[in-house]
């Protein structure tokens, strides 16, 4: 009996004494080589075309660290709403065990179907955050709004609200990034040009529901995330 209590005590101490360390992930929105500032004009295609990003917001979830092909750490119930309007939201700090070896990072872009299927949730998932559809249930995974001379729309505006979780339009995506061994200060470029240059902006400028166009655009999302260091 005494032995059991002793082992229990030791394991408790072990649990509490497991050292934690912080790793930070900074998301850095760019267009090709230039940083994106909200509401500022940037020119592309040899300065023939212009673009103003007015809003960039997206969810990051299900963060995992891997060593080669093995998951070594998972952040459970971690849902982060990144919003360029609030620069501090573009940095995520994670507390992980000290002695972890990892060389890959996996990120969920958006909210997976299991989480979507639940009832109302709080924190970053609170429906007051402007990332939940009201007319049809489901989170908006990724929101990009702005103006481009290429859009033949009123005031040249475009709006992409990518989301939805029900088959055949389950738009949740993951991206897998290779890291320098055990790097604790990660900088990830979010290159919007990877979306915009592949898009027929003239014709596709409003996506507000889960549909074929939304699915096509969403498939491009993983490639906009690039590890910088």
């Amino acid at each position, binding site marked *: 009996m005494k032995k059991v209590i002793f082992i229990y005590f030791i394991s408790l101490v072990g649990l509490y004494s497991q050292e934690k360390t912080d790793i930070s992930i900074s998301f850095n929105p760019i267009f090709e080589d230039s940083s994106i500032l909200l509401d500022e004009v940037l020119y592309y295609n040899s300065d023939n075309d212009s673009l103003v990003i007015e809003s960039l917001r997206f969810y990051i979830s299900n963060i995992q660290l891997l060593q080669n092909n093995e998951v070594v750490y998972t952040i459970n119930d971690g849902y982060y709403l990144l919003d360029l309007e609030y620069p501090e939201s573009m940095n995520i700090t994670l507390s992980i065990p000290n002695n972890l070896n990892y060389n890959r990072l996996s990120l969920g872009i958006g909210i997976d179907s299991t989480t979507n299927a639940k009832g109302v949730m*709080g924190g970053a998932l609170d*429906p007051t955050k402007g990332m*939940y559809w009201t007319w049809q249930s489901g989170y908006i995974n990724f929101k990009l709004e702005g103006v481009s001379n290429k859009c033949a729309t009123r005031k040249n505006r475009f709006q992409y609200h990518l989301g939805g979780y029900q088959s055949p339009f389950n738009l949740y995506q993951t991206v897998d990034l290779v890291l320098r061994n055990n790097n604790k200060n990660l900088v990830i470029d979010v290159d919007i040009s990877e979306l915009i240059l592949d898009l027929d902006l003239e014709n596709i400028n409003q996506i507000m529901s889960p*549909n074929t166009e939304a699915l096509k655009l969403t498939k491009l999302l993983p490639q906009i995330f690039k590890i910088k260091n």
Partner: protein
Amino acid sequence: MKQKLIILLSCFVLLTAFSSDLLVFIYPDYFPKPTYNFTENPLSINKIELGRALFYDPILSKDSTVSCASCHSPYNAFAHTDHDLSHGINDSIGTRNAPALFNLAWGKSFMWDGAIHNLDVQALAPISHPGEMGEDIASLVSKLQNTSKYPNLFKHAFGDKNITGEHLLKAISQFQLTLVSANSKYDSVRRKESYYTEQESKGYEIFKRNCNSCHTEPLFTNNQFERNGLEIDTTLNDYGRMMISNNSKDSAFFKVPSLRNLSYTYPYMHDGRYRKLKDVLNHYTSDPSLSNSTSIKLSSNDKADLIAFLLTLNDRKFVFDPKHQFPRE
């Protein structure tokens, strides 16, 4: 002995920890298990009462003129008698009939087209629809925060004066979950407390042969979507489920409504096109656009018998239950 004492003691602690406020959801033993996940939102008196206050408060709409109860009146089993289409702020008229609200704990999806998958997020739709309440959920939260009444009610219900969208919606769900209709004559017969008349019995047999596959007992809906042969109203062009699923197979499919409380919930159908029950029966028995599987052959005697049975689904106790009505302070 000592062990027993410890177990007893810990049970006592558990009971007191969860006492007073928490409630168990009660329903008849012949009902199926509810689909709502009560562990994520356990019922409590204070939360239900908060939800009830919100349900009857026009503050939920942009100009504080329309409450949930404006279109979901307790005396109509929470439907909107006499109005074929829903109403909203600035006298706007919607495109569908406001459905009755009861037995929502068994709902698998919500709205005529099933656009909403969970009761908790359903209220977002009417709150933010420009033709209904026209309010934004984030500005509603700050509006409520600036009242003298609501921060305290949220504190009592959720232990936090700071109102969130999550707590607001969970409270509205809680009140709606208490709207259980299980006290009609049909229910008392099921509980062997009463008997059908001869005509009601005949009507019940006709019902079981012809209606029960969609309006399935004891909830009187299979919670599925069906195409019932109604022609598309070209002033509305409402294709129902297809507008959500983007699948042409779902064209003109709508959610099967429960038949409970049907005397209180007219007009009928998703666009409220029929004012009388007999119009509904005439549609199912004589509409040439119906396929053989949906069409029903009934004599006029059969129709009278069927209606006699259908009237046993009215639940007066539910409709006049003071616990569901406008909260008196």
